[in-house]
């Protein structure tokens, strides 16, 4: 874990593991939670196996859809683990994803109250170190605005 680049979401979900798994693997169910209402999610491909595709589109009005995700599953362990990345698209072509490269890992385990659900999202650096230095920010991406204010005030 790199606290500047990664995040963890951890929950105990009061539902059986198979039910949570189905929400990830059944396109109709997946479309119901992946994006926040009123945005409408359309699942073009949900092929939950290593190397398989996850392709979604989204719409603010339910009429005009724009691409949302086009990613590849790296690891799939039935009822236990799903890992996908947006660094290669669903045809395995390396892509420059926006805004940032990521690998998301979802781990499911049994829990007395239902399902222990953990997501770890590992991000690439959204901009290279060089870019920061060019901009005159030397303290990492997390303080761009502060550094900018400092540059502005001292010159």
């Amino acid at each position: 874990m790199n606290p500047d680049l990664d995040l963890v979401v951890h929950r105990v979900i009061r539902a059986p593991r198979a039910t949570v798994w189905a929400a990830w693997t059944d396109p109709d169910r997946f479309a119901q939670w992946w994006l926040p209402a009123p945005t409408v999610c359309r699942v073009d491909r949900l092929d939950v196996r290593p190397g398989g595709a996850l392709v979604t589109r989204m719409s603010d009005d339910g009429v005009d859809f724009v691409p949302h995700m086009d990613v590849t599953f790296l690891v799939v362990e039935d009822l236990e683990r799903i890992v996908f990345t947006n660094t290669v698209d669903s045809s395995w072509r390396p892509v420059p994803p926006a805004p940032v490269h990521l690998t998301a890992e979802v781990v499911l385990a049994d829990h007395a109250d239902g399902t222990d659900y953990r997501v770890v999202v590992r991000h690439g650096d959204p901009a290279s170190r060089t870019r920061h230095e060019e901009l005159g920010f030397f303290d990492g991406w997390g303080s761009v605005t502060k550094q900018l204010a400092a540059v502005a005030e001292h010159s």
Partner: protein
Amino acid sequence: MAQYLAELDGVFAALADPTRRGVIRRLGRSPTTVGDLAREFPMTLPSFMKHVRTLETSGLIRTVKHGRVRTCVLNRDRLAVVDGWLAEERRIWEERTDRLERLVTEPEENRP
């Protein structure tokens, strides 16, 4: 949501070019006229104006016209979008997990 993501893409795309980063850095010091800015970059004025328009479209800068002089001003609030990217990603995943939880725990008849 779609619009927000498109805006975020626009900001990162705008920052992906060295000339445009140079403009941001310069405007961090003070608002500057297009003419003065253009002289600092080795390219034709039409090429430079393309960069200015990209920055303006992304919302990172705004331009104000007084008579025949156009001045560029940095929009600091927009840079904050970049600053808070990890917090934003965390919010997206937390809320996504909330929705997953609701879907799998609520009885079907209560679902919209």
